[in-house]
C-alpha cells in the first residue's frame, strides 16, 4: 500500500485527519504531529470540514448512523495525497471498515476503496513512507509504549512505534507484562460494562507502572484517555499531587526529543 | 414433516454459494518434507517420550526378552495377550517359561468384564503404524486385539515396527486410503492417559493406561 513510500517518491503534500478525540481532547498531540510532518518539509492540509470517522456508532451497532458520518468524510480528500491519521483505531476504521460499510452503495464503495489505500497511521507513515530516522536531542529517560488493539490487529502497525522509540538513543523502552492486551477502553464498552472495563484498565495501569517508566506514550488517544484517566483517578484516590503515570501521544514525545 | 426434513429444508433454503475445495495435499507438500526411516524414528521417539511414554529399541529377535525385562522390572505378573496373533503366541511361549501368566483375550467382554477392570495389570498389542510428527501410535483394534485391550489395563505395551512410521497423520491416511474404509474403531494414541483438569497441573493415568511402553522393532544390529 505504500505507493508514495518508495524511494524517491516522498510525498510533498499530505492530508491530516485529526480524529474528533484529538480535535477536542488532545489538540496538542495533533499540533505536534503536524509540526513534525512540516519539519520534514511536507505540506500538511487540514480539511476544516472534518469531524469524526464514524467509529463510535459503527462499533456500537448503529451502522446507518456511522455511514452518514463516514460518507461526509469521504468527500474531504480529493487530491491523491496520503491521509495521515494519528490513531490506529480511527485509521483502521477508515482503511478497513469504510469499504464494507459502503458495500451496498457502488459509488461510495469505490470512493471508500480509493481512500482506504491512502490511509496511513501516523507512526507507519513516519517509518515506512518517510523512512524517518529520529535524532535524539534529549537526556536519558525510560518510557513505556502502549499500542492500541486496532493499530496492532487491524492496521498491523504495532512495530513502527517501537521502531521509532528504538531510534532514540537516550530513550529506554520498558517492557510491560501483557503488552498486547487491551486497555479496556473499547468505546461504549467502557460505559456499558464499567466493571469489566474498569478491571482491565486497572490491570493495564498497574503493569505500565510496574515497569518504573517515567511516562507512557501511545499512538492512540482513545487508549490514553482511558489509561491516563484511570491513573489520575487513582492518584486522586490515594492523595498524590503529582501524576504517578504521566503520558502523551507519541507525536508529542518524538517532537520534543528531536527538537532542534 | 420430520425434524430431519425441517432441518434439511431450512439449510437448503439458505442462499449459499459453493466454495472451492480446500487443497490439503498442497499444504502438506509445502510444509512437510519426506524423511528417512531413521529420521522418522528419532522424531517419533522424541515426541512420544516427551508425552511420558517409555520407548525401547528392540529387534525381531530380542523383543520377547525386553518384554520380560519390562514386566519383571515393574513386577507385573500377568499380561493380557491376543492368542490369535503371531506376537501374542510368541509372548505366551516365552513368558510362560518365566512365571508370567499370559491371560488370553478369547471371550466376549460381557463374560469377563469384572476381571478386565479389576485384575488385568498389563496388556500387549501391536501397532498398525505410527506418526513421527506427533509421536503417535496407530492402532486398529480387531477381533484379535479388541478395543478395550489398549485402554483398560494400567500398563499398555505396544509393539511397533519402525518401517511403519509415517511422517504425518495426513500421510498415513492417504497412503493407506483410510477414506475408502475404516474399521469399527481406529485409534491414534500419543502417550499414557493424562489430564490437566485440576489447576492446569499435569497428572498421568486419568482413565486410560497410566504407562505406555513402546517396543520399537528395528533392523538387527
Amino acid at each position, binding site marked *: 500500500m505504500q505507493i508514495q513510500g518508495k524511494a524517491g517518491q516522498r510525498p510533498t503534500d499530505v492530508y491530516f485527519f485529526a480524529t474528533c478525540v484529538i480535535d477536542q481532547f488532545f489538540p496538542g498531540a495533533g499540533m505536534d504531529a503536524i509540526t513534525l510532518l512540516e519539519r520534514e518539509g511536507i505540506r500538511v492540509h487540514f480539511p476544516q470540514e472534518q469531524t469524526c470517522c464514524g467509529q463510535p456508532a459503527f462499533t456500537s451497532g448503529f451502522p446507518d448512523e456511522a455511514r452518514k458520518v463516514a460518507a461526509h468524510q469521504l468527500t474531504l480528500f480529493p487530491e491523491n495525497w496520503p491521509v495521515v491519521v494519528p490513531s490506529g483505531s480511527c485509521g483502521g476504521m477508515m482503511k478497513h471498515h469504510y469499504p464494507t460499510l459502503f458495500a451496498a452503495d457502488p459509488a461510495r464503495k469505490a470512493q471508500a476503496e480509493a481512500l482506504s489505500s491512502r490511509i496511513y497511521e501516523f507512526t507507519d507513515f513516519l517509518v515506512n513512507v518517510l523512512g524517518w530516522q529520529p535524532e535524539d536531542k534529549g537526556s536519558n529517560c525510560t518510557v513505556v509504549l502502549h499500542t492500541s488493539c486496532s493499530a496492532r490487529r487491524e492496521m498491523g502497525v504495532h512495530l513502527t512505534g517501537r521502531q521509532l522509540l528504538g531510534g532514540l538513543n537516550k530513550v529506554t523502552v520498558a517492557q510491560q507484562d501483557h503488552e498486547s492486551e487491551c486497555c479496556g477502553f473499547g468505546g461504549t464498552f467502557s460505559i456499558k460494562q464499567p466493571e469489566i472495563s474498569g478491571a482491565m484498565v486497572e490491570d493495564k495501569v498497574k503493569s505500565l507502572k510496574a515497569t518504573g517508566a517515567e511516562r507512557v506514550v501511545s499512538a492512540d488517544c482513545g487508549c490514553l484517555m482511558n489509561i491516563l484517566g484511570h491513573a489520575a483517578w487513582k492518584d486522586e484516590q490515594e492523595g498524590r499531587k503529582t501524576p504517578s503515570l504521566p503520558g502523551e501521544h507519541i507525536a508529542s514525545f518524538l517532537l520534543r526529543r528531536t527538537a532542534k | 414433516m420430520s425434524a430431519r426434513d425441517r*432441518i434439511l429444508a431450512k439449510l437448503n433454503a439458505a442462499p449459499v454459494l459453493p466454495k472451492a475445495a480446500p487443497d490439503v495435499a498442497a499444504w502438506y507438500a509445502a510444509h512437510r518434507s519426506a524423511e528417512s526411516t531413521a529420521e522418522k524414528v528419532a522424531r517419533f521417539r522424541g515426541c512420544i517420550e516427551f508425552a511420558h511414554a517409555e520407548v525401547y529399541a528392540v529387534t525381531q529377535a530380542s523383543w520377547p526378552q525386553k518384554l520380560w525385562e519390562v514386566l519383571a522390572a515393574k513386577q507385573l505378573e500377568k499380561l493380557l495377550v491376543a492368542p490369535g496373533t503371531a506376537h501374542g503366541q510368541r509372548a505366551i511361549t516365552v513368558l510362560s517359561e518365566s512365571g508370567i501368566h499370559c491371560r488370553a483375550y478369547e471371550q466376549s467382554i460381557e463374560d469377563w468384564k469384572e476381571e478386565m477392570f479389576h485384575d488385568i495389570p498389563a496388556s500387549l498389542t501391536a501397532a498398525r503404524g505410527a506418526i513421527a510428527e506427533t509421536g503417535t501410535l496407530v492402532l486398529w483394534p480387531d477381533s484379535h486385539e479388541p478395543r478395550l485391550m489398549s485402554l483398560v489395563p494400567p500398563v499398555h505395551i505396544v509393539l511397533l515396527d519402525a518401517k511403519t512410521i509415517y511422517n504425518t497423520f495426513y500421510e498415513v491416511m492417504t497412503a493407506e486410503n483410510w477414506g475408502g474404509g475404516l474399521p*469399527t474403531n481406529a485409534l491414534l494414541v500419543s502417550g499414557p492417559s493424562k489430564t490437566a483438569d485440576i489447576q492446569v497441573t499435569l497428572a498421568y493415568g486419568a*482413565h486410560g493406561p497410566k504407562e505406555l511402553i513402546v517396543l520399537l522393532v528395528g533392523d538387527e544390529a
Partner: protein
Amino acid sequence: MSEHALNFMPSEGFRARAKDVVENPFLRQSFRGAMDFLINKRITQFPSAEELETLRTLGEQIRQYNLGKLPALLVQLEENLTRNGIKVHWAETPDEANAIILGICQKHSAKLMVKGKSMVSEEIELNHACEAVGIEAMESDMGEYIVQLAGEKPSHIIMPAIHKTKEEIAKLFHEKVEGVDYTDNVDELIQIGRKVLREKFLVADIGLSGVNFAVAESGTLCLVENEGNGRLSTTAPPVHIAITGIEKIVEKLDHVPPLLSLLTRSATGQNISTYFNMISGPRKADEKDGPTEVHLVLLDNGRTQAYADEQLRKTLQCIRCGACMNHCPVYTRIGGHAYGTTYPGPIGKIISPHMLGLEATKTMATASSLCGACGEVCPVRIPIPDLLMRLREESFSEPHANPTMRGQGAGYSRLITMIWQAWATVYRSPTLYRTYSWLASRFNWLTPANQGPWTSVRTPLKPAPKRLRDLLKDKS
C-alpha cells in the same frame, strides 16, 4: 459466583455476576494465571508464523467448503453411518434431543449413563432430563466430574473446572466421595476420580459422548481427548449415544488432520491429544468388545438460523478449541460462569444468541472491547469482532418484520437510537460539529464532573479550551 451460576436468562444479572468475579482478587489472579499458562502453551506450538497463518487459512477453507455443502453432507453422513450400522437421529430442539436419548435409554431399561465430555449435552441440559426420569447421568471427564460433584456448570469448554483450586477440589472430594481423606495432591485427587469412575464404566448401561468431527465419506465419528474417558464411554457400555451439532461435519477424511492439528495446538498447546478416537460402527459379529448399538443425534438448536445468513454462518466454522476465551481479556477478568450460557467467552457471545434468542442474550455482545484478540487466534479465522458488531446491530435496531434472528430488536431503545441519530446529525454536518465542539470547549456544564460509569474509575473527560482547529487558526 455459584449463586449466580445457574441462570437461565443470561443477560439478566450479567453485570452483577461479572462484578462478583472482578471484585474477587483471588479469582482474578487464578483466571489470569490459568489463561497465561494456556496462552504460553499455544505459542510454543506455533514457532513458524507462516505455518500458523497458512494452516489457519486452510482450516477456514475446509470449514467454509464443508458448510457450503452442509445439507448434502448431512445426507451423505446419514447414509454412510446407517450403512456402517450406526443409527442416526435428528433433533431441532434440546427437548427433542433429550426425548430421543431418553427413549434409547428407556428401551434398554438403563439406570446409569456415563458421559464423555460433550458441550452439546450441556447445551440441551441432558443431565437434568436424565435426573427427571430417574436415570443417573455421570460425568467422567475429570473436570466435568468435579463440576458435577460441586453442583456447578463448566466454566470453560476445554477446562471445565478451571475456576476451582486443588484445595477446593480436595475439600469437595473429602465431603462428597465416600471414604476419601482430605488430600490436595493433584495426582492423588486424579487417582480418586479414576477409581470412582472405573466402577461406573464397568456397570454403565449407556455411554454418551460428543463428536469433534463427523466424516461424511466414511461414516466416522471422531473424538479428541486426553484422559481416556471418552474412549471408555464409547467402548465399555453396551450402548453408545453420540450427540453433535449439525455443523461439525467434514466431507473427506483428509480434512481431519489439519483441523485436528489446529484444534489441539490452539486449545491446550499440544501437538496432538493423547487419544484420537475414530468410530465407524458398533461391534461386529466377530468382535469381542465395543458397544452393540451406536446412535448419533444431530442437533439443530438455532444453528440453521445462523446458517441462513452469509455473515452469521461463519459462527458455525468453530471447532470448539477455546483459544478465543483463553485470549479474551474479558473472559480472563470474569471467568466462564458470569456469562450464564453453556458456551462462555467470545464464541459463547456469538453462538448463544442463535440458541437462546437475542432477548435472553442481548447483553453478551456488549461485553467486548472489540480488541480483536479472539479473531487473531481463531484457528479457522472466524471474524468474531465483526460478528459481535453485527449482533449489536441486530439487538439494538428497531424490531422489524422478517428478522434474521430470533429476538431481533430485543435491545432496542427509542432514546438510545435518537441519541445516535442526533450524534450522526451533528457529526455529518461540519457546521453543527464546529458549533457543538466550540460550545463544549467553553462551557464546563456540558462536561460534568460525574460522567456516570466513566468516572467510576477515571477522572472526568474535559475538552481542551482550544480545539485543534482553533490552534491551527491561531498559528496561521
